[in-house]
């Protein structure tokens, strides 16, 4: 609880969280303006898909930055050393810090999307289940990238490193990961499609998108071929959970294993 409170106090004084939130607010409001011409009963789904497709560019990088700099700040201000010399191990520090980060980033986002729902109510017929799935998608995406950010903050020793790693991670998941898979695509057969599918859904952006689009009932998987059935070997929600767990655990382990206690300019 202390960590959450500390994280909150630090973040409201900083500009990062507010910048991130204002970008999200701005995007969602502008998408709402663009979508006012959509039909009352189905426009809601179109809006959510459009919003997700736009916001997906920002949430990862903002969460990466917030996570990374939040950890790094402890190094810069020497508070990390102070915390660790008391009773905390780095593991417990990182876990508590991560919880603090989740709370501080997710609560404003959730509050905003609750307010946003009220705005939507004037324009569209709401589907609460679809909206809940949308929120869940956003939350998962934020969690994964916050934790990755925390890992980056843990093992970086300078601010330039953080910027470099963050941009690399963002670039990797947006371009490189899919690009590598695209290059292997011609060789995918029924025998190796499960492996290919696991790699495909290892990209948080893809597993979150699949979960969102199928969960809202927008994307239909009808009349699947044998190959596609083998590709979708489990439900999208399990792909999402698997992805979330994989990246949380990997990031935490990376953060703990490679952490550095000192940071410098």
């Amino acid at each position, binding site marked *: 609880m202390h960590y959450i409170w500390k994280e909150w106090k630090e973040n409201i004084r900083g500009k990062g969280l507010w910048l991130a939130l204002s970008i999200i607010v701005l995007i969602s409001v502008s998408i709402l303006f663009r979508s006012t011409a959509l039909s009352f009963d189905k426009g809601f789904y179109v809006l959510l*898909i459009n919003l997700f497709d736009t916001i997906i560019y920002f949430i990862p990088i903002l969460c990466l930055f917030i996570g990374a700099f939040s950890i790094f700040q402890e190094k810069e201000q020497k508070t990390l050393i102070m915390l660790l010399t008391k009773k905390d191990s780095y593991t417990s520090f990182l876990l508590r810090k991560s919880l603090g980060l989740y709370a501080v980033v997710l609560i404003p986002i959730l509050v905003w999307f609750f307010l946003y729902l009220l705005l939507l109510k004037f324009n569209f017929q709401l589907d609460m289940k679809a909206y809940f799935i949308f929120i869940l998608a956003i939350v998962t995406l934020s969690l994964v990238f916050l934790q990755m950010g925390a890992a980056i903050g843990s093992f970086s020793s300078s601010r330039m490193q953080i910027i470099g790693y963050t941009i690399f991670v963002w670039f990797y998941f947006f371009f490189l990961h899919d690009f590598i898979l695209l290059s292997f695509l011609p060789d995918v057969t029924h025998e190796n499609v499960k492996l290919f599918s696991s790699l495909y859904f290892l990209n948080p952006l893809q597993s979150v998108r699949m979960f969102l689009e199928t969960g809202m009932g927008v994307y239909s998987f009808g009349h699947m071929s044998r190959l596609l059935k083998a590709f979708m070997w489990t439900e999208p929600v399990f792909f999402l959970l698997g992805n979330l767990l994989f990246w949380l655990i990997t990031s935490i382990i990376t953060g703990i294993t490679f952490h550095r206690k000192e940071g410098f300019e």
Partner: protein
Amino acid sequence: MKKLLLFLFVFSLTIFIYPEKNSAAENLQAIIDSLEEGAVLKLEDKTYEGNIVINKELTLIGKAKTVIKGDGTGNVISIKASNVTLKKLTVTNSGMDRNSPEEYAGIKIYTNGNILEHIKITHSFHGIYLSQAHHNKITYTQIQGMGKGEIAAQGNGIHVYYANHNLLSHNTIEGTRDGMFFEYGNNNESYENNISDTRYGLHYMYSDENIFKGNTFTMNTGGAAVMNSNRLLLEDNHFIVNYGNQSFGLLLLQANDNQIKNNTFYMNQRGIYIDQATRNAIQGNKISQNQIGIELWASSNEQVFTGNLITENTISAVTIGGTGETNFWSHEGKGNDWGNSFPLTDLNQNGIGDFPITYRSSLYQLIEDQELSYLFLKSPALAIYEKMNAALVDEKVMFNDPHPLAAAKGNYNLILFAALGLAAVLILIKGRHLLCITFGRNGRKI
């Protein structure tokens, strides 16, 4: 005395006899049978038990809560006389048996000149079935199926079988197998219908010269599937979010000489999907934000694309299975508006671009060989993949528009771009440390 006692006994029996459940309902068929030709029967606000057969010309008018409930073994209402009118009814519970000699429906029409208005149909195999019935009018009906996933266990919203010259307008169909299915139905007209969550919103098989205007298809597996049908007019329809691994806004399969005019194709997996079709005119449509704007299989020839706005699709148009050079991307010197997808100049301001647009791509091969490629259509990596392959792989011409239209003024979201630009400038202008200050150090410079 004996007579009096007998009378009392019989009379007392009538008191104890349990009144027939819904006696009025039991009698609906009897009432109908007793009516004269051309009569008008006003039904009450209650549930009548079916099934009923109407075999004389009459008008049945219900109220807000009038329900005719079938016994689940056959058609709830069978119309076997011409010029019958049904208004303001809810019809429910037809037979669902697929092993029966016929496919059942909420309302099955076997005759001509009938009118159905403000009818709601639920829990029925087919909603309304027109069997060799002509010149009928079906308007403002609402048909609710079991949901999108259920294909085999249910029928279609409106099933038109060997039926011609019918008018279907302002109907709402949701969650049935196909929304409107035309099988050997010619010269039918459909206006302003709203079809969602079905397999195919509209499905034409062997049905020619039908008109389909102003209809909206949302969230179906496929918007409209036109198969083996010729000389149709599809105009001013909206195909929105028909999205899934097999999905499309409009499919033309072995369909010839159709006119596809001024429709909107928005956020579909494929906007228009053309296979083994010939001489279709695709004109003035708005095809935007689809994953693939137009997917054209090489077995298709002589389509004419003119005056369409094809923009913001992941892939504007792709030709699969060989070169698509027998299709025309402009007509009488007028091509298509490719929006922001292809940069174009129009120095002489005549509305036609100064040079032709030729789109080459290597993606066709991937899409042709590997169905999983569709999963990457939303990935930004696709653009890089295209650029890389441009240098390495032999690209093929996907289309060549000799007279592209100069793009209409884009409706960019100025506020968004301005704000993002401002944020970026603010971050950059203050030097490289600001990003770090923004995200760390409690916002303080040290």
